[in-house]
């Protein structure tokens, strides 16, 4: 590592933040990229890729909840830790310190809103840019997933029927008594 590098260097694939852990800091990416992965029922889903200059883990500063996602290094990455204490001590003296964070979170919500609006029936409900899903957005996402499953089931049911018709199986089978 360069002697002038600030922060801590993580190797490719190293976990910086683990979903479910408690957190008392946020991170500023000094160099490289990280991926944000959320563990769900269907396995891991990449919800964001963030790069130099961006901040992650800020939800732990504002909420006393466990980390909502796992953050991994994509290639070698250098990350600076920002203590909750340092941030909160200063932000109560200078509330404008939160401007940049609010602006960044606002950008993420805007992108997310755009993606939700652009979702087509049967499309993939996955955000590439955001960590922060509000409760309302989570509900929309769950509903979309349910809708897609129903649509998919209907389609797959129709396909099976059409395949069977093509093979003449339906026409040849005797109707149940």
């Amino acid at each position: 590592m360069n002697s002038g590098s600030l922060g801590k260097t993580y190797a490719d694939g190293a976990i910086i933040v683990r979903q479910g852990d408690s957190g008392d800091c946020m991170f500023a990416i000094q160099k490289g990229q990280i991926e944000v992965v959320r563990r769900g029922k269907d396995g891991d889903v990449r919800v964001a890729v963030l790069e130099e200059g961006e901040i992650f883990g800020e939800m732990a500063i504002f909420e006393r909840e466990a980390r909502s996602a796992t953050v991994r290094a994509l290639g070698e990455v250098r990350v600076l830790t920002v203590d909750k204490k340092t941030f909160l001590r200063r932000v109560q003296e200078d509330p404008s310190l939160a401007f940049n964070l609010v602006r960044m979170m606002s950008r993420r919500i805007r992108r997310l809103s755009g993606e939700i609006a652009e979702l087509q029936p049967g499309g993939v409900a996955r955000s590439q840019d955001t960590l922060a899903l509000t409760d309302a957005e989570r509900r929309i996402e769950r509903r979309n997933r349910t809708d897609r499953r129903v649509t998919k089931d209907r389609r797959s049911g129709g396909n099976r029927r059409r395949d069977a018709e093509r093979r003449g199986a339906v026409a040849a089978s005797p109707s149940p008594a």
Partner: protein
Amino acid sequence: MRPTARGARQQDNLASYFEEQEGQLALADGSRIGVIGGGPAGSFFAYFLFRMAESAGLHISVDIYEPRLFDRCGPAGCNHCGGVVSESLVQLLATEGINLPPTVVQRGIESYVLHTDVGQVQIETPLQEMRIAAVYRGNGPKQSEPVAIAGFDRHLLDLSATVGAKIVRKLVTGFDWNHGMPQIRTADGDMATYELLAVATGVNSQILEQLNSPAMDYQSPGTLRAFICEFHLGQATIRQWLGNSMHVFLLDIPRLEFAALIPKGDYATLCLLGEDVDEQLIESFLASDEVKACFPDTLVPTPACHCFPRINVRAAVRPFADRIVWVGDSGVNRLFKDGIGSAYRTAKAAARTAVFHGISKADFEKGFWPECRALIRDNRIARLIFGVTTLIQNLRFLRRGVLRMIAREQRDAGKNRLMSSVLWDVFTGSAPYKEILLRTFHPVFPLRLTWNLLAANLLRTERKGMKEGAR
């Protein structure tokens, strides 16, 4: 806030929009702001003024007067300072979206080594992460390595230029009022009038004396002479002898308040603060065994360059007036530590006041002065803390106890690092002095210190007596 009840003027006069006052002094669309000095205070002021004005939809122009070219090596491009960006400031800047690249940071500092005549001890950063930046204020010492580095001051000045500030490469030589507005005169005879003037000259500028007028109530800060020099050691020697640690010396030398050796690229910066540092004090310091032990073959090399800058040790009186504000060193500063952090705090408070409150004396008193007052109050506590530090410097039995307590804390990973965290923040300037003082009120602190004082002195004497008896 009731914008509908206001006239057309108030639509483009943001401060009166917030303050609900007619005819007050405030920035408006098209306002011109002058900044004297392009060091950190001036650049931070311009940067935050633009950012805040932009978020409020206000269109302004800012001229920063800075004759020095910070990309020149040696004194011509230097702002004469130790060049340490504190741990807390590095974090706050990152939160603001201002990251310091490796071209600017000469070395990331991850620990402190405390040197005393009774031993030395290393204090690790709590997260074992490089969070203190050793920087050059200019472009390095004379005949240094100007290849791929950028000074901290130049980095910030470039940053303010990217958000819209205009850099005027002229020396400001005069100040006057023009129909109630501040007017400045440059060395080439040009005059310029501004709605608001920010003075960010530091304490080593001639122009500061001209602003010491009874009409404005401003009195320049009290200063002390410091000593800063650069030793050329080379990367390999620095890695081997100093590492990524800042070396702090608690030595019993009269008039010495604070001494630190800061490793950078190929150089190490020595910074001495005290009661008017002179040749005699410097010689005593460099001749001490603890200092010599930091260099190969215990030989202190000849400095590549040195300077005796004055530093702010007593706040300026009323660093604000109608349409004029003093930020950074020329106003209020933290005592002995984190000068760049003070520049950030006062410059941002001044910018915030100018955009969201107004630019009259009353506005600065309401919006800017509380930030300065907080620093001044904290400096009172700092004098007490540095008084205790001086006591430790003077009394060997105290040094033994403190050193033992730190060594034990650093050795036991799970232990609550009370003394280590106190000294870490005193040396790094990362936390307010009030918070540091309160930490010493922890019930375990005096007990542990007393035990370590006894153990370090009495047990030592006992052992020494036993050895003598055996002989």
